[in-house]
């Protein structure tokens, strides 16, 4: 909700207009002044704390086991062994490439599926009229509070009865559509998709599904992109369920990286080279699309 709308609700239209005018002149509130250097110093420290552990794993990943034992705080410049360590990771028995492609498959399929089904449901909840609409939506939101992790025992039983243990479907199917996704797309389409467009399509003889396909899906694109990004990150970084249902024979990346510690627990140059290697893809995604991730979180919070 914008602050203008907020003021309109609380103090009437006149106040909102006055506030908008004041904001345009950019004066009274202290929020409009540029902050001093203390603010930037705090932010710089926070940035350092955010980034350093990631860089630290690269630093250790680029040195050799001997120098790690000698230097607790590695020099800020990476040593020269990174590619040696990487090749050792790749030649170890953790199946790095397989894990990478598994993670990619799971993350991409999950993202596409979550976006599609969530948009479908969000379109229905926000723009179509049916009995029980509100109750069903409330139910969807309520399910967000149910910790699905606790169902792992029966979920595992189901998966093994289906013969899916060790297969990627076992990871993909449970996260094909999420309550968060449905809620997110409902919120977005509520405001972003005008009824006139839907009506026009229906008048032109579109069936329900082609109206969705040609009108709702394109309109949902910005929110869909963010949802895809979130799902991608969430699915790439998840560990518990893939660890249980896939095991080390057909791992995703976090499952594989975890094996490094189990088998090479003294050799931190190797382990952290593997960690760095597994983190690089998402750091790249973040560098390219991080601003959307940020604005996505910001939007979701305001609307939620």
């Amino acid at each position, binding site marked *: 909700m914008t602050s203008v709308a907020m003021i309109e609700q609380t103090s009437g239209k006149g106040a909102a207009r006055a*506030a908008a005018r004041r904001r345009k002149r950019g004066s009274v509130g202290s*929020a409009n002044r540029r902050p001093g250097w203390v603010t930037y110093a705090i932010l710089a420290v*926070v940035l350092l704390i955010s980034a350093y552990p990631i860089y630290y794993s690269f630093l250790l990943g680029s040195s050799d086991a001997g120098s790690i034992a000698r230097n607790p705080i590695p020099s800020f410049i990476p040593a020269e062994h990174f590619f040696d360590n990487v090749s050792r990771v790749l030649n170890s028995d953790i199946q790095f490439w397989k894990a990478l492609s598994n993670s990619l498959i799971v993350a991409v399929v999950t993202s596409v599926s979550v976006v599609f089904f969530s948009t479908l449901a969000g379109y229905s909840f926000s723009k179509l009229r*049916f009995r029980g609409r509100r109750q069903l939506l409330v139910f969807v939101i309520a399910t967000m509070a149910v910790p699905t992790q606790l169902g*792992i025992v*029966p979920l595992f039983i*189901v998966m093994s009865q289906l013969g899916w243990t060790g297969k990627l479907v076992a990871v993909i199917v449970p996260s094909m559509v999420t309550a968060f996704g449905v809620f997110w797309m409902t919120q977005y389409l509520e405001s972003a998709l005008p009824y006139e467009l839907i009506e026009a399509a229906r008048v032109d003889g579109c069936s329900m599904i082609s109206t969705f396909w040609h009108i709702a899906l394109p309109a949902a694109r910005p929110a869909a992109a963010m949802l895809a990004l979130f799902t991608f990150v969430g699915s790439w970084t998840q560990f518990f369920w893939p660890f249980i249902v896939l095991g080390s024979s057909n791992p995703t990346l976090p499952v594989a990286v975890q094996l490094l510690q189990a088998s090479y627990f003294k050799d931190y140059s190797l*382990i952290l080279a593997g960690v760095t290697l597994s983190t690089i893809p998402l750091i790249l995604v973040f560098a390219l699309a991080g601003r959307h991730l940020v604005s996505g979180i910001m939007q979701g919070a305001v609307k939620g």
Partner: protein
Amino acid sequence: MAVISPPELDPELDRAPRRIAMRQRLGRWDVKLSPYLYVSPFFIVFAIVGLFPLAYTAYVSLHKWHLIGGKGAFVGFENYAYVLAQPNFWIGLRNTFSIFLLSSVPQVIIALVLAVVLNNNIRAKTFWRMGVLLPYVVAPVAVALIFSKMFADSPTGLINTLLGTVGIDAIRWHAGVLSSHVAIATMVDFRWTGYNTLILLAAMQAVPSDLYEAAVLDGANRFRQFISITVPMLRPTIIFVVITSTIGGLQIFDEARMFDQTGQGGADRQWMTVTMYIYELGWGAQKSFGRAAAVAWILFLIILLIGLMNFWFTQRIASSGTTAGKKKKR
């Protein structure tokens, strides 16, 4: 369509289908069934991975049930009795709560402060916001491996060296109960504080600036504004952050499991969490799904209880607060 069923929702929704239906008599069933069809994937998936497992967990917990051997005899509450008699269960419960509190309390406070800082009219907003969010894209497993090295027990570990420069003796992070909990809580906070900061920041930006202007006129300083305006107006968002971190915090597994190479939670189970205990019962030496399911159900009840307490507590605060009621409108 709309003619048949009584109007109940907002007028815009009423208008749309009526016109459509007049034009599209043939597509009646299409119009009638499609909405249900479109929302069904969520309900199907949730039924399979959420609702059914919850009930089935209860069923499994009442039986002898082996990972490979499958279902055995009905044993009633024997699994529960067994589990509740295990010291490790209580240790796991203690650890879970301790790690959860040690991580979530500082997390919410730091996130609030950071959000206030970011809420200034700073240059390069997006850059700083991205910087705060960066740890969120690192997998918990990776975070755990990095931090368990940083929290090495030896005096030459990174954190211990840093502590040494300010005159604090080396801490054996993996040996103690509290010290290992602090280390694991740090990992959790590293990954999640930025995320929560942005959620709180978004809510902060929705606070009308009039309130602050009035406070300035009344002579309130920045701290006073924070306590009397920002925090009350943010109450619903803070509650949201607290609840989500409760649900996540009580299920903590990844970080604690990766804290050493054996994944047992330490020699004396100093940092073994309830979820790790569930894993150990079900997939460890015992392979007893019945007992694992019993622990899962106990944990579920605890989360439910805390959720209800949260709700009750916040209701009380909300009704006693003056500004909070207005914010509820959204």
